[in-house]
């Protein structure tokens, strides 16, 4: 067969050209990536951004023979814009930073108080970011040192924080993992304000950055997730403590499971494990003032009894139901007191509820919602049912 008669000679020619003309221009090998798992953003006094990235050392994490090198490294630099800082990082980091696997962004208090919107713009705009990462605020230490703490048990600090947030949210309900989507939509929504988990540094900064930190059984320096930062618009307004954070989650139906402990009538305490809760908010207008009804439904088990109470009697269960309902109501009220009166931040999304339920009224108040918000009347109705009381009806230390 003559060569010029070869079948498919045109497609073949084009195909060969394709191979020669392309250059795999945006392909990157895995060993050329600096996989960034945590990103810290803070501001200097000259209002330049300080960008800190936590990059993993894959060979230290997935290895049978670990060396003394740390599992992660941090690089820090400054820049007038974040993007500039990112590119300037290449002067310090040997590999180009790869941001798609980002787990966590830690914002410094300075940035949070000044407003987070300008910072979040790049994170939201750039195509390389996956928008599932959590946004948090460094509560009591500079961002740079937060990112440099070597955590025990979990080799990658970013994973430790992310897992802690998820685990606290699921089992204790005292925080809330907030992704960047959620933050931006709450900021943009006039009827809602965002919250973000706070990260607290326990112990000395200096010991935490050393690998020795994890050579102790009880690491001297730890990172803790507890309080929630309350934002007004995109500016940090203040903090909610543990109980208030739970109150927020109760009111918004974000409690998967938690524990409520209350004192018994005579002495001792009793703990109830809440298993399923749901919350509904309804907005109505009474004498031209917005009113919100929060209805919390819950189911629970008696988990631990340390007092004289006979659980075989229905009225004992009824009493426990009451106590738990009161506890829930109280924590919601505590949260309301802080958010509504002190910070004036609509973290519950009351505005959104009014918007949904009373759209005509909302149109009137939308512009000056924050002034109306402080006077919103809130009715809380908690309803809890204890389903199971465990394997015994009596406390084990009760004399019989």
């Amino acid at each position, binding site marked *: 067969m003559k060569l010029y008669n070869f*079948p*498919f000679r045109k497609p073949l020619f084009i195909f060969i050209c*394709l*191979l020669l003309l*392309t250059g*795999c221009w*945006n*392909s*990157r*090998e*895995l*060993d050329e*990536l600096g*996989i960034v*798992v945590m990103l810290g953003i803070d501001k200097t006094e000259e209002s330049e951004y300080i960008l800190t990235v936590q990059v*993993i050392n*894959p*060979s*230290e*994490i*997935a*290895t049978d023979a670990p060396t003394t090198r740390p599992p992660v490294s941090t690089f820090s630099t400054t820049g007038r814009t974040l993007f500039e800082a990112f590119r300037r990082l290449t002067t310090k980091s040997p590999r180009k930073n*790869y941001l*798609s*696997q980002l*787990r966590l962004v830690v914002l410094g208090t300075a940035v949070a108080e000044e407003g987070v919107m300008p910072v979040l713009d790049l994170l939201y705009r750039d195509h*390389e970011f*996956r928008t599932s990462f959590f946004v948090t605020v460094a509560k009591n230490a500079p961002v740079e040192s937060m990112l440099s703490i070597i955590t025990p048990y979990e080799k990658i600090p970013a*994973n430790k924080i992310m897992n802690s947030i998820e685990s606290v949210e699921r089992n204790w309900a005292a925080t809330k993992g907030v992704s960047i989507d959620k933050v931006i939509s709450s900021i943009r929504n006039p009827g809602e304000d965002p919250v973000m988990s706070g990260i607290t540094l326990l112990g000395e900064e200096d010991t935490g950055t050393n690998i020795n930190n994890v050579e102790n059984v009880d690491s001297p320096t730890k990172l803790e997730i507890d309080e929630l930062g309350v934002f007004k618009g995109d500016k940090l307004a203040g903090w909610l403590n543990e109980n208030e954070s739970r109150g927020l989650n109760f009111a918004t139906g974000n409690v998967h499971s938690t524990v409520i402990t209350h004192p018994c009538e005579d002495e001792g305490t009793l703990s109830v494990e809440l298993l399923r809760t749901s919350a509904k908010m309804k907005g109505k207008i009474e004498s031209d003032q917005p009113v919100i009804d929060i209805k919390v439904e819950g189911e629970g088990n008696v988990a631990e009894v340390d007092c004289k109470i006979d659980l075989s009697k229905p009225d004992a269960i009824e009493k426990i139901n009451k106590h738990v309902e009161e506890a829930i109501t109280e924590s919601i009220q505590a949260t309301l007191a802080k958010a509504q009166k002190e910070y004036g931040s609509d973290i519950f999304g009351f505005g959104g509820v009014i918007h949904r339920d009373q759209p005509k009224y909302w149109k009137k108040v939308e512009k000056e919602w924050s002034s109306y918000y402080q006077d919103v009347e809130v009715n809380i109705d908690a309803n809890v049912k204890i389903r199971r009381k465990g394997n015994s009806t009596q406390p084990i230390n009760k004399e019989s």
Partner: protein
Amino acid sequence: MNKGNEQGSNQSPSKESNSPPLLPPLEDSLSHIETELGKSTDLVIRRFAIYKTRCAALYIDGLVDKNTVQNFIMEALMLEMPHKRVSVKELYDTIKQASLPIGEVTEFNDYEALFKRLLSGETILLIDKEKKALAASTRGWRDRGVQESTSESVIRGPKEAFTETLRTNTALLRRKIKDPKLRIESKAIGEVTRTDVAIVYLQDIAEDHIVQEVHRRLEEIDIDGILESGYIEEYIQDAQYSPFPTVYYSEKPDAIAGGLLEGRVAIITDGTPDVLLVPALFVNFFQSSEDYYQRADISTFLRLLRLVCFNIALFMPALYIAFTTFHQEMIPAPLLISLAAQREGVPFPAFVEALLMELTFEILREAGVRLPKPVGSAVSIVGALVLGQSAVQAGLVSPAMVIVVALTAISSFVFPAYNIAIPIRMLRFLFMILAATFGLYGIILGLIAMVLHLCSLQSFGVAYMSPFAPMKAKDQKDVIIRFPHWGLFSRPSSLTKKNEKRTNPSSKEN
């Protein structure tokens, strides 16, 4: 048994008229034959006389069964013939009608037929001054015998395989299908080799136009020799430049018999155990004859597994390249970290790494086929230890890549039909190149092109991708899911529309 040969002789008259007629004086004929055959040493000419009429028996040593020649030709003619004076015509008729106790005797009158029959193992009887000659079927030669299939092994079901002898192969099919409608039609193909090729089908099931098409395509073959059915396959396949096979072949009589029952046409070539079966659909290559011997549930599972393996074998290295060099964000973080750790210090890009390992495997595989058996174990040592473990230890490839290549390699062996693995082996490299240049985008483009190509193929007038494209709901019962036999009511409608019913649905009660 006779059918094939009768067919053969019926088709020859047109040619016989062109070739020179036999020369009446016996010695002239014999010297002509000897000259034509170049005094070959395996030509045996036995001259004898029946009451002064000189005769000669000719055969090729090694192609005839000597006992038959001895007992039923030599003895019958030399010892038992009445020794009285008769005319040549009378003698010829007596021999033809009464004196040759052999099943198959043909009469002919030209040299072409003579040589054809002589060289295919028949014994030729020439009588002096007679223009016609007789050929007695005395074929018999050493062959391998029916043995266990080596290239298509099964756990359950018949183990026998076709042999190199056409007659044995047709007999194996007859033994499976004792139906008078089983047609065996023969052709001799190849100007020099004159290889016997038999077309086998069930007349009341196979579509006539498909049978005619097979005849037509075989008729058009003009080649000096056919040594294996692969020669025929290349002539009759529909898509000459497609990597995908449009002709199915098997060396198992039960697989071919199953195909005949579905209305396909088998083409048996003398000299090879591999029997062709047309039309062949894409899905046929994923179906094993064993699927019908095992329970329906496990057969369905195995067919699904084969489809999964098809995808693994075709796309796995390409996907690995695409994910690790373009789409790292799609890999779960712990896996990414582990992969990145493995790649630390590997000097080649993932594509080169994959290409090296795939080529290495293809080399090992080819070497494994060609190596003499005693040194075969050396290949497995080299393959497993030297290339697998040592390459990783030396830091030339990452362990993940070894896993990918190993899985790909093993997946390409699960198909019951060897020839469907061939396009997979070749296209795999194409997909790897696409993945290395365009990532997932390239793979999807390649996939679209491949599916379009597959949908454009036909095999003997039947759409290659049927019953998926065109979709035939009725035929889905025996494609990926195999229904139990009592549920397979009808034959595949894309193959045949005759005699559709296979079973009576109520028969399962018995």
